[in-house]
């Protein structure tokens, strides 16, 4: 198996690897969107003066942050079909697991973002007759999100790496595709090196982009 580096196996498997990558990217994009929407709601709940809401949101966040992601993916693979009473397939169960899990992290990022906006902004908005929710939606959240774009994207890059965990529910993401080829053709070194290189390049480029953006937001 260590006899000579076989570039050809990589070329031959590019179509299947590309299919895997599409799934990884799709999962990342959808889970991020869902996670940010649900995370924003959770953050607003946590900041609510109504105790049951803030306690419930706090408990949610702490629970998800105390459990390994891989377990959450597993559970939802078994639980979602049970809850819905019909099979949903590994893609949707994994998507739901990621979105709900990520929301706990996004919640904390967004909460800090909202709290960083001076209280005077809400006062000014409310003084003009806007309701609390209008003030949030039109004045506070747009400012908070503009400040948070870099952190949210960084969290997205971490999520992209974490999507490789879907191998536990036999979803063919990029990592799984590489691993399948590696075992089938007995080319472990080539495939795993190539997979590592691809993850590294994407995440490195992503981080670089975020840093560029950060200096622009700060300016």
């Amino acid at each position, binding site marked *: 198996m260590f006899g000579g580096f076989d570039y050809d196996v990589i070329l031959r498997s590019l179509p299947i690897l590309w299919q895997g990558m599409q799934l990884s990217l799709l999962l990342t994009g959808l889970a991020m969107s869902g996670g940010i929407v649900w995370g924003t709601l959770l953050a607003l709940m946590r900041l609510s003066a109504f105790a049951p809401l803030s306690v419930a949101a706090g408990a949610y966040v702490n629970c998800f942050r105390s459990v390994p992601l891989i377990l959450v993916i597993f559970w939802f693979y078994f639980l979602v079909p049970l809850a819905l009473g019909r099979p949903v397939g590994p893609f949707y169960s994994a998507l739901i697991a990621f979105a709900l899990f990520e929301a706990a992290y996004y919640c904390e990022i967004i909460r800090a973002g909202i709290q960083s906006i001076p209280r005077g902004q809400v006062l000014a908005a409310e003084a003009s007759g806007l309701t609390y929710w209008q003030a949030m939606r039109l004045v506070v959240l747009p*400012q908070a999100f503009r400040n948070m774009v870099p952190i949210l994207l960084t969290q997205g890059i971490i999520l992209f790496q974490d999507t490789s965990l879907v191998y536990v529910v036999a979803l063919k993401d990029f990592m799984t595709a590489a691993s399948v080829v590696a075992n089938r053709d007995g080319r472990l070194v080539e495939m795993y090196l190539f997979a590592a290189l691809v993850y590294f390049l994407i995440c490195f480029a992503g981080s670089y982009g975020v840093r560029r953006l950060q200096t622009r937001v700060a300016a």
Partner: protein
Amino acid sequence: MIELDKVNKWYGALHVLKDCSLAVSRGEVVVICGPSGSGKSTLIKCVNGLEPFQGGRIVVDGVSVGDKATNLPRLRSRIGMVFQHFELYPHMSALENICLAQVHVLKRSRAEAEARAMELLTRVGLTDKARAYPGNLSGGQQQRVAIARALAMDPIAMLFDEPTSALDPEMINEVLDVMVGLAREGMTMMVVTHEMGFARKVADRVVFIDEGQILEDAQTEAFFAAPKSERTVLFLSKILEH
């Protein structure tokens, strides 16, 4: 138009407003002064319900502010407020700042709101700054946009909380000029300020507040000529020195 009757407020154990009673009639300009921490901002924020109060009554244009059934957003939309630190929305241009509540509270069309905004920008002398963002405006310009933003709601009264105390000296007058213009047009105004020149020029009455208590409430001439309380005299001597 604005009536406060024995208003009391606590922040925890701190008794910030003690039996404050005050009335502002339609078209009247009342200046409120007093040392820092005496409760001026708190008092003025109680008037439009931005701060809750625990005792007494505040009635604005026949509406009881402290009443649970009162629709506060609706009441606030009819009272303009200007803050010490302007509080313009930094992610919106001057024009958008002035349009926001017109569109979302008064339900004016965008075109209508923009027309009104341009009218007011012209009035405060900032026609050419409609597209500028607050970050690119001087303090005096920002405060004038903030006044235009409040006026855009066609308020029945205006509240000012130290509108010039965050400004560089050379910008104070451009803001005061706008306020003098408003006062002369008959706007009902409650103004927290230490600008005694402004008070002498347009105020009908001056109120002095110290440690949460209204110690003096007098016609402007009488206030400066013969203040009743010793603490008012002391306060005036301090701020009139420079």
